């Protein structure tokens, strides 16, 4: 491992005082230090580890630096972002550039009382009430989470008091405008009883640079709370993106996660939920659209701890070139979690002979009276469908693109925020031959 940060002391001296969230807050510093020690001890995972068998992260360890940068926003990127900001008037917008909150580019807007939406740095600086346990080892699902805790740059904190319903979506835009930057976003969403929120996390790389993002999102839903979460990875061509999204759900809560992996050289998402209370529901879905040498890996885990919870997973992959897709979904139904209802499906469309998919739906059931199903398919475009479209005068390229679009649409159509749905639809069509024409007809 060639890591420039040699020791905690170096980092603490060189980095924390400068620009990382929560510097000077003793418990934060202590949490960073112990997380860094865990990271040093374990190092990056290798392909010998079951959970990393199909995803090689060695290249991340070979980076020249893992140190988070402190690159100020570049005016040219602000111009590019301006269009975004304009388009997002009906959202609570928080923009992070190279890991750091930019109040100039953000437009948080008016929040209902009982709602807090701020950058993590501001929350820590204000010494506001935040569960310190979120930075403990027990919340680290992978070693990347330890590294994130050690080096957290900044992130968003959303706290809703019981019953608070956020009408507009929260839009978190993470922009990488530098070359070779490393960023460690940490997002924390805490919803009180019956609170509702929709959050979009958009990771956008402006350059084809070897940027590295190691993100962690922690979600806690009290009884009856509801969260829709939509994540879009649109990193630059050579970027690495590793992230965890972890929810804990109390009785009757609902968590919906959409994950779109459209950009970057490597994307790994670990998405989990703990169904701790009776009658919870979680639904994960995702789409990976890959070509060239892109690699995308979705690892999910749902733990049914309480009775009468439902979980749903729908993931689809479209793979061209020499790309590689991975889906590993684990559902564990623990003792006492009777009347659990779990369903998992992963479907893949291979567009080239060199593309590859590893899919592994898994069920572990330790309770009686449960309904669990799973399925996975890997296939090609259907000849009958292609002929049908072509027999209507549609050229072969457009016919293929329509079928691919249709396949993707099953997932895109699940996104509740119309602006986001259209945005993703267009991103998919932009990658398809004749996609521009299809866009015009939509």
């Amino acid at each position, binding site marked *: 491992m060639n890591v420039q940060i040699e020791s905690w002391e170096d980092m603490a001296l060189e980095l924390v005082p400068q620009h990382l969230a929560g510097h000077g807050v003793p418990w934060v510093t202590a949490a960073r230090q112990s997380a860094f020690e865990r990271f040093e001890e374990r190092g990056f995972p290798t392909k010998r580890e079951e959970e990393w068998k199909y995803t090689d992260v060695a290249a991340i360890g070979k980076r020249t630096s893992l140190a988070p940068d402190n690159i100020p926003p570049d005016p040219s990127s602000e111009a590019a972002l301006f269009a975004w900001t304009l388009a997002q008037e009906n959202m609570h917008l928080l923009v992070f550039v190279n890991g750091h909150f930019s109040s100039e580019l953000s437009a948080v807007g008016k929040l209902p009382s009982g709602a807090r939406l701020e950058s993590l740095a501001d929350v820590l600086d204000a010494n506001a009430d935040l569960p310190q346990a979120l930075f403990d080892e027990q919340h680290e699902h992978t070693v990347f989470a330890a590294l994130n805790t050690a080096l957290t740059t900044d992130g968003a904190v959303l706290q809703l008091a019981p019953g608070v319903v956020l009408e507009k979506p929260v839009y978190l835009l993470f922009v990488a405008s530098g070359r070779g930057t490393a960023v460690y976003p940490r997002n924390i969403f805490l919803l009180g009883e019956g609170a509702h929120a929709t959050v979009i996390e958009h990771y956008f790389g402006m350059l084809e640079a070897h940027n590295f993002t190691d993100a962690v999102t922690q979600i806690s839903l009290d009884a009856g709370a509801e969260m829709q979460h939509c994540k879009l990875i649109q990193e630059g061509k050579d970027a690495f993106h590793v992230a965890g999204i972890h929810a804990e759900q109390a009785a009757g809560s609902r968590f919906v996660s959409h994950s779109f992996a459209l950009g970057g050289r490597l994307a790994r998402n670990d998405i989990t939920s703990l169904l701790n209370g009776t009658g919870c529901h979680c639904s994960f879905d995702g789409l990976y659209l890959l070509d060239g040498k892109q690699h995308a890996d979705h690892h999910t885990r749902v733990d049914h701890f309480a009775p009468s919870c439902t979980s749903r997973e729908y993931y689809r992959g479209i793979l061209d070139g020499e790309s590689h897709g991975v889906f590993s979904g684990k559902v564990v139904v623990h003792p006492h979690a009777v009347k659990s209802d779990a369903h998992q499906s992963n479907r893949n469309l291979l567009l080239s002979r060199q593309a590859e998919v590893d899919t592994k739906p898994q069920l572990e059931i330790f309770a009686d009276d449960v309904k669990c199903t799973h399925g996975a398919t890997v296939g090609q475009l259907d000849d009958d469908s292609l*002929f049908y479209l072509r*027999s*209507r*005068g549609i050229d072969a390229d*457009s016919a293929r693109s*329509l079928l691919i679009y249709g*396949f*993707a*649409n099953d997932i895109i159509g699940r996104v509740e925020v119309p602006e986001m749905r259209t945005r993703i639809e267009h991103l998919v069509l932009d990658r398809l031959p004749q996609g521009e024409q299809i866009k015009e007809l939509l």
Partner: protein
Amino acid sequence: MLSVKNLHVAIEGKEILRGIDLDVRPGEVHAIMGPNGSGKSTLAQVLAGREGYQVTAGSVRYLDLDMLAMPAEERARAGVFLAFQYPVEIPGVSNALFLKTALNSIRKQRGLPELDAMEFLNLVRDKMKVLGMDDKLLPRAVNEGFSGGEKKRNEILQMAILEPKLAILDETDSGLDIDALKLVAEGVNRMRNAERAIILVTHYQRLLEFIVPDVVHVLSQGRIVKTGGAGLALELEQYGYGWLETEPEALQPS
């Protein structure tokens, strides 16, 4: 308009069509009847440009074009239309998007401007009304979850919108109840005119009560064994196809 000469077609080495001759002129309605496995659907698919068949001999001329050299989409743009026996479901693609894409491809070929959203909607709604179709089918995925009758009507809707010169209807009557059959037949009859030719591929005479053909061909074991007027269909209805099996070689096209 269409001239098929000595057409031999095989699939995976097995000969399905064994020398088809067929001439269809503008304005004519031809029925091709025959028992299961006689090659009716293969003929329809080969004419529409389905890949995977080997044409081992013969030729097909359409409007002075070498049709067999043209991919399916070029045939469609030149005015050929096949109403499928089993319309294909296209998940995730709305009927509206599908119809718009198809219509614009064909209009472009004909040198016509693309229709804007309003013009398109008006056109489609009109045609749907005639076919007794609910316009709620427009935002739904192509044929997905459609009933058998809705799928067949959706085929006729496409035909009505694309206005082909040569329409081939493959078993369009199968799976339709009598009311749906009448609506479909009405839709087809409305499209009959002096320039347009229609080929009805069907097992049963039932459809021909509502769409009366000018010429009826009987296909058996990959050959047209008998050709006659509309009355031939009634004979078939009366005697069935059993007589074909016993003496196919004895019969010559009239």
